[in-house]
């Protein structure tokens, strides 16, 4: 049987492929094309007809204070969580890769928060952050200032509180990926370095860091794509408030498109988000590649 040239597909093959082809068309390709199309219309779910409005939605979005605030918050969220999550994840991975009894146990424990439903985690932290809750008690113990009304009800702390929870939750997941990368580094490299009398820090800089770079690049891109899409935390904990201080881009899309049913407007916001994610991922890939080359 020729395996290197194109074969005629059997009837059964079409049948086997059809679930994916149908899913792809109905639930992926169509929505993506529709989203692009709708963003140039003034389509509203409850109105009967719609018309093309060109770039009006986009122009209007840039004037919309809630939208620019949401973009700002989303960037703050991403820039404020990504470095911490990444650093903690690398440190934990290196820590677990060293000599430690019960290694697998600790690895599982650290990873556990990212296994749990985000809704549940958000519910737990809503209580922890509440007025008179445990985090306030903790702040009182160490003498740190805290907002009386509760962390999620103060414009100064709400976003930071959500960010802190996210760092706590996501670290274990990225730790696992770093750990996989660490374990693929051949041990002989370290042995040779030790024979040459290289210090631990030098070993880290010369051997560990370069080997972690592909994973680091991947995690930075993956983590920022995920961070730009923050929604569940905001929905459960703050509903975008207080005073839009935790409103994020996806939450804005949801509110405009599926709460107020301004479909065209919401779709335009979603496409701007898409474009931002694409540009940022591309920039990150380019920046880190240039540095490593």
């Amino acid at each position, binding site marked *: 049987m020729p395996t290197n040239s*194109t*074969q*005629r*597909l*059997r009837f*059964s*093959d079409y*049948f*086997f*492929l059809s*679930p*994916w082809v149908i*899913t*792809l068309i109905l*639930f*992926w390709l*169509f*929505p*993506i094309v*529709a*989203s692009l199309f709708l963003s140039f219309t003034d389509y509203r779910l409850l109105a009967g007809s719609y018309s093309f409005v060109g770039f009006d939605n986009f122009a209007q979005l840039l004037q919309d204070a809630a939208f620019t605030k949401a973009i700002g918050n989303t960037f703050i969220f991403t820039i404020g969580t990504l470095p911490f999550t990444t650093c903690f994840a690398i440190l934990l991975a290196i*820590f677990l890769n*060293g*000599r*430690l*009894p*019960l290694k697998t146990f*600790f690895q*599982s424990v650290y990873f*556990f928060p990212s*296994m*749990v*439903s*985000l*809704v*549940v985690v958000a519910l*737990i*932290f*809503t209580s922890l952050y*509440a007025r*008179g*809750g445990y985090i306030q008690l903790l702040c009182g113990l160490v003498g740190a200032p805290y907002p009386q009304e509760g962390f999620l009800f103060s414009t100064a702390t709400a976003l930071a509180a959500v960010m802190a929870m996210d760092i706590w939750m996501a670290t*274990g997941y990225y730790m*696992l990926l770093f750990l*996989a990368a660490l374990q693929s580094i051949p041990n002989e490299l370290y042995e040779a370095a030790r024979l040459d009398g290289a210090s631990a820090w030098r070993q880290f800089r010369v051997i560990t860091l370069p080997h972690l770079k592909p994973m680091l690049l991947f995690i930075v891109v*993956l983590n920022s*794509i995920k961070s*730009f*899409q923050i929604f*569940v935390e905001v929905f*459960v904990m703050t509903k975008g408030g207080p005073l839009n201080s935790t409103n994020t881009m*996806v939450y804005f899309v*949801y509110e405009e*498109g*599926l709460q107020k049913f301004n*479909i065209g407007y919401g*779709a335009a916001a*979603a496409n701007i*988000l898409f474009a931002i*994610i694409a540009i940022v991922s591309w920039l990150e890939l380019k920046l880190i590649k240039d540095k490593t080359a």
Partner: protein
Amino acid sequence: MTTAAFRNCGRVAVAIVIALIMLLPFVYLLLGALASTFSLTGTIDLGSYRLTLANFATLFARAELYLPLANSIAVAVIVTLGNLFFCTLCGYVLARRRFRGKGFLMVTVVLVLMVPVHVVIIPLYLMTNWLGIFDTYLALILPFLVSPLGIFLMRQYILAIPPDMEDSARLEGASEMTIIWRIVIPLCKPALAVLAVQTFMVNWNSFIYPFILTSSESMRTLPVALALLQGYQNIDVPQLFAASVISVIPTTLLFVAYSKRITEGIIAGALKG
């Protein structure tokens, strides 16, 4: 030698402190769910603390959480079974055949994984409306029966299996379906286990899709019910915590039993991107 032992103790101490940071919120959740009383500020009064299952009992007497639990189980199980079957079929063809459009199909599998899901929530909502399946079980199940990640996982695994057995079965006149059922699926058991655990977890915890694709109370899954019941007057924190504990139990059990499979699945899923 003593300094080494001392160092070791230090490392364990650090490890335990980090473990506490990771686990204490869940201890709080569990203690809260089992508490007889709960202060309004969300702290647990250890002085008058008494373990009780009363919160769980009240919970199961309430329809608004009983039904979501059943929905969550049904949807996660059906979607998982669907993925095991359909991803194997698709992965098999993509691994074994060469045909026009195969490259395109492979690219779509990877590209779709990179599309931010939230970009398509509005059109997906409209699509389910037009198909007439909005707010039905079909909306919760159909779009997720076959996943790009699963296809990718199965294709990679099948590629590594030599096709000899399939070829000889074919010569003996076995149909393609028999080949899949009798040869491919048994050989793929390790990959299927990874896929099953992964798919179940993702769908069990899934919030945004069930949230936007349904509207009536009777169609809610557990995470949706939890998110929407929070803050309502007629549910108190211990009950909410009890419901959260129930939603965490399957994840925890799976995690304890299959932590190796789960980590494998996550690393495989991440590395292919």
